[in-house]
């Protein structure tokens, strides 16, 4: 179980997250949605200890985050932008991550094989296409058989075949009882993958429940319209205030 309580965060005086309290259910795919700048990436980075909250606590499987990094052994992460040292090859990047994890770690190369990257792995990263870098990054997120996978806009920049392979991998992870948290602007994709939806608007949680409940509550059949309705409701509330 992942629990955030009363999270506040401001960058240079500008609030990014305001009183975020949230529970994320295990063995589910949770999609964090919201417009650009709503605090999605900051929220994900907080779970990884990269950004520290100004106030509030984060608890992951009973462990309260304090700055010690050992809990990240069970987490896989795919950042929004896949940038690696330019003169290393994809194979060396993977080897580096394996080295950092130490000898005892499990290796799951399923996604690496599914992406058919073998021929690309020996080229220096600087000549790899953006999509192929993204594939290395996605494969790295699943590499150490994590129980929690955090994916920041995972399919952005991927071709349809690779995007399909990644989505299939996410579904298999969920079936195997893993917890997946992702952000995406492609709502059709969220509808295919997510069980739970968190909607962030201006750093506050406007929805945190199942996808089905969101549809029922807003009386909209498509997620796109449901989210649009939530945003309209928020604007209405701001105008009234």
């Amino acid at each position, binding site marked *: 179980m992942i629990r955030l309580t009363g999270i506040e965060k401001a960058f240079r005086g500008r609030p990014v997250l305001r009183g975020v309290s949230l529970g994320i259910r295990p063995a589910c795919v949770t999609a964090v949605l919201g417009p650009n700048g709503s605090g999605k990436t900051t929220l994900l980075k907080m779970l*990884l*200890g990269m950004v520290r909250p100004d106030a509030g606590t984060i608890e992951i499987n009973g462990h309260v985050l304090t700055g010690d990094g050992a809990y990240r052994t069970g987490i896989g992460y795919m950042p929004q932008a*896949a940038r690696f040292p330019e003169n290393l090859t994809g194979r060396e990047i993977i080897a580096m991550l394996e080295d*950092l*994890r130490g000898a005892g770690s499990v290796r799951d190369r399923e996604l690496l094989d599914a992406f058919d990257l073998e021929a690309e792995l020996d080229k220096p990263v600087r000549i790899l296409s953006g999509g192929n870098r993204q594939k290395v990054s996605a494969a790295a997120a699943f590499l150490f058989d994590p129980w929690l996978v955090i994916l920041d806009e995972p399919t952005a920049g991927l071709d349809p075949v690779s995007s399909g392979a990644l989505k299939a991998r996410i579904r298999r992870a969920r079936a195997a009882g893993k917890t997946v948290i992702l952000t995406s602007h492609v709502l059709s994709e969220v509808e295919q993958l997510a069980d739970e939806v968190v909607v962030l608007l201006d750093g506050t949680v406007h929805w945190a429940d199942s996808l089905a409940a969101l549809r029922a509550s807003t009386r909209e059949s498509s997620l796109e319209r449901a989210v649009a309705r939530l945003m309209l409701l928020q604007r209405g509330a701001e105008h009234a205030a």
Partner: protein
Amino acid sequence: MSTTARVLKYQLRDVLRGRWLIAYAIFFLLLTEALLRFGGTGERALLSLVNVVLFVIPLMSLVFGSIYLYGAREFNELLLSHPVNRRELFGGLYLGLTVPLAAAFAAGVALPFLGRLGSAGGAGALGALLAIGVALTFVFTGIAFLVALRIDDRARGLGAVVLLWLMLAVVYDGLILIAATTLADYPLEKPLLALMLANPLDLARVLLLMSFDAAALMGYTGAVFTRFFGSLAGVAVSGAALLGWIAAPLLLAAHRFSRKDF
């Protein structure tokens, strides 16, 4: 193997394959070779090299250091999502740049001297030049890391390091000269010594000129410095000051890196 060693292993590979590092080594190689061919004796070539070393190493360490850290920002995010200690990662990043930079400089300057240094005094001066060049690489890469960690905007950060270089390499000495001439009637030896210790570039220059027996070039102040730096206490103080200039920015940057939001 610690995280630092593991990160260093791959950072070294990345940096050593970079073209700019090779260009940096070749620059020193060609310059030293040219000075030795056309400038006469080894000692004279070394003295000419002092000025180049004092200008080029700080500027390049500042610029390479900040570009390197800004470029590694996204990859550092990925590394930090793994169970790694931030300080150890920082150590790997720092050594991953300073070691190749220092080695490129040392190899570029030392190779043309092979078999050309007749006197033992020349070898000592070459040793001093190499040691101080390496120390300056460590000092200014640390300062570059500190600036890049404090200023998030890449363009502003690069502007800041270039400005800092101008201040330390050019403006600082000008201000000291103005102060020394306007306050010529007062006893200035001690304040001037303190000011020298406060600028790593001045400190390096004085240490180099001392080791070249060229202090006479510095006139009256040269006499003061010879008295101070020539003594055992002077060597100890100036050596400690240079080590302090390596340690202080590095510790501040490491502290910042371990607390920063990525």
